[in-house]
């Protein structure tokens, strides 16, 4: 490579930057950005969008200057290679890497993750009812209101065993208060869900929406007994575990913190005669009665005798933990 045409490279780089900006702009305008980034991260996306437009424009202007080399020629000491290295083919490959996400972003359909991803990630039933670290650590807490230290002092070995094995709590202890939207300290937190449970108890039908999804998942775990026999309606995509019977189904939702890469899956068990007609990944509206049931040894709410209707994908297919 005898001569490095920096003005040409500045030009191409500028256009690639504009390409990124256009992709982000299009995703923002079309609203499809919700498939990739959580709403609370949007300010960063706007920042990236504007910065890319500015950088791209600057870079294209830089390319028009004949003496673009002047400031950043080989004599510059800024300590990194300003030049895209290698023979032409390598340069082409490097630029292709940058163009790839732009092309994929425009051409491939914007969709939310589906049940194959859900299966891979492993579904969390209820609010994460199973005894996770936090949960078993605080397992004895709910009913007795004793704190963790007391729980430990009562039975140090057993307590630590639970903590380490992440298991061993019997189902009574599983009533539980871990959730990702847990903002308050333990008491305020319990209080919040107690109030929510009492409020919901007076409603004829519990309607689960995007906004209260994770709250209701949690409250149904913590105070399941209060909800048995109540009617509930919920929307989610249909999902089946391999060991499910014909009348069993899950209405599942992905929950996203920052971006799709960190999405987790939450689901509610449904028992219905109509379940066998539902294909996986179709969005369903379920209306039924809450009962307590068991799956994999955990006590869970299950929606029985559910009436299932296929519905369109909700505007926001993901649910988000709310840091109240």
């Amino acid at each position, binding site marked *: 490579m005898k001569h490095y045409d920096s003005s040409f490279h500045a030009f191409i780089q500028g256009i690639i930057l504009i390409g990124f900006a256009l992709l982000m702009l299009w*995703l923002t305008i079309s609203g499809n950005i919700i498939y990739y980034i959580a709403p609370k991260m949007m300010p960063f996306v706007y920042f*990236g969008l504007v910065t890319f437009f500015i950088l791209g424009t600057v870079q294209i202007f830089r390319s028009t200057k004949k003496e673009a080399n002047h400031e950043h020629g080989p004599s510059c000491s800024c300590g990194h290679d300003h030049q895209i290295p290698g023979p032409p083919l390598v340069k082409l490959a490097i630029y292709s890497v940058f163009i790839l996400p732009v092309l994929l972003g425009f051409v491939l359909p914007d969709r939310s993750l589906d049940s194959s991803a859900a299966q891979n990630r492993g579904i969390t039933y209820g609010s994460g009812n199973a005894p996770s*670290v936090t949960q078993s650590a605080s397992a004895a807490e709910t009913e007795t209101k004793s704190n963790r230290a007391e729980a430990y002092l009562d039975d140090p070995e057993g307590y630590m065993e639970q903590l380490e094995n992440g298991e061993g709590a019997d189902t009574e202890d599983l009533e539980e208060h871990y959730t990702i939207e847990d903002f308050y300290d333990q008491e305020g937190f319990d209080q919040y869900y107690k109030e929510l449970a009492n409020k919901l108890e007076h409603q004829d039908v519990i309607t689960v929406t995007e906004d209260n999804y994770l709250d209701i998942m949690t409250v149904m775990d913590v105070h399941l007994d209060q909800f048995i026999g109540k009617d509930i309606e919920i929307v989610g995509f249909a999902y089946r575990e391999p060991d499910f019977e014909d009348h069993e189904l899950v209405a599942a939702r992905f929950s996203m913190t920052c971006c799709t890469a960190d999405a987790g899956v939450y689901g509610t068990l449904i028992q219905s005669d109509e379940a066998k007609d539902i294909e996986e990944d179709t969005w369903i509206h379920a209306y039924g009665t809450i009962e307590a049931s068991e799956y994999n040894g955990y006590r869970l709410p299950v929606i029985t005798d559910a009436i299932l209707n296929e519905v369109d994908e909700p505007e926001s297919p993901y649910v988000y933990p709310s840091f109240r």
Partner: protein
Amino acid sequence: MNPKQARSWGKDLIGMGLLLLFLFLFLFSDQLSNTQYIQDLPSAWVNVNTIFLSIVLEAIPFILLGVFVSALIQIYVSEETIKRYLPKNALGALFPAAILGAIFPLCECAIVPVVARLVKKGMPLHVGVVFLVAAPILNPIVFMSTFFAFGSDWTHPVLLSRMGLAFILSIIIGGALYFIFKNSYQLRAKQQDIHEHHHHQTHSKKPGILNRVKETVYHAVDEFFLMGKYLILGALIAALFQTFLDRQVLQTIGSGEYSSVLVMMGFAYLLSLCSEADAFVAASFGQNFTTASLIGFLVYGPMLDLKNTFMLFAYFRAKFVIAFMIIVTIVVFTAIILLNQFVLPNWYQWF
């Protein structure tokens, strides 16, 4: 028209063609995505694409922040300033570096160009390493997200161990790398000699705010193109792992005391999550993994992951990156095992 002119016309055409292609895609993306051929793609590959783009789109603003900070350091912070504020004792610099790492709220994407720049500017390598591993964990956002994810409990073992280990281990890792590399030069970019150094002095004295802004922007763009390709490749591979690696398999191989820690560390490496969000992912594993392995996941991932490795290779010599990876892995693993043996069993006696 002479051949030189023809070539420059050709190059302009390539650029214009690319721009037109982007504009076309921008205008007709909807129709394209709806064509039958593309709709029929296997859903697993659409999932790969979704995760790939989500990592790229999320990381890019932070990469931009990182390259801007790096460009600002390049232009406004001189080698002399760094020398003046650095403790003379090589190992004595480790502790303040870890504290500084806690003050800089930079995530693991943004920290790589910043550290490379600081090292280039004369900061000792091992001090840079302390920054590199401490800053992504020891920052307020990560603290809060871990706090929320693990039950909003100030004394939760995962929260405190994560922060404490990040602080202590960053010093140990920095010290270990000092004993291996001393003050040798490990950046890929050519070392500046005195002549260039001199040149730079005149260079930065250039008057005019506009010129400085322009220079910052040029540096930022060049650096974006230097490291962006590694980020994109790393994101692509991480997306493949996220889609095709069955998490249930992890549980079956990772049930032992030691193997579960190793598995979760490896998993953190492959997933390449942002340190801000990884606590929630760790919490969702809670039911199947031990506390120690979750801490391993949360300490190791931000220090070292797949996309990060690619970026390190962009700046540092391969030998150094490999040594860095080995040391981080050994130190974190050992620390987690010790923690599991001696600290976790007595946790609630202390709090």
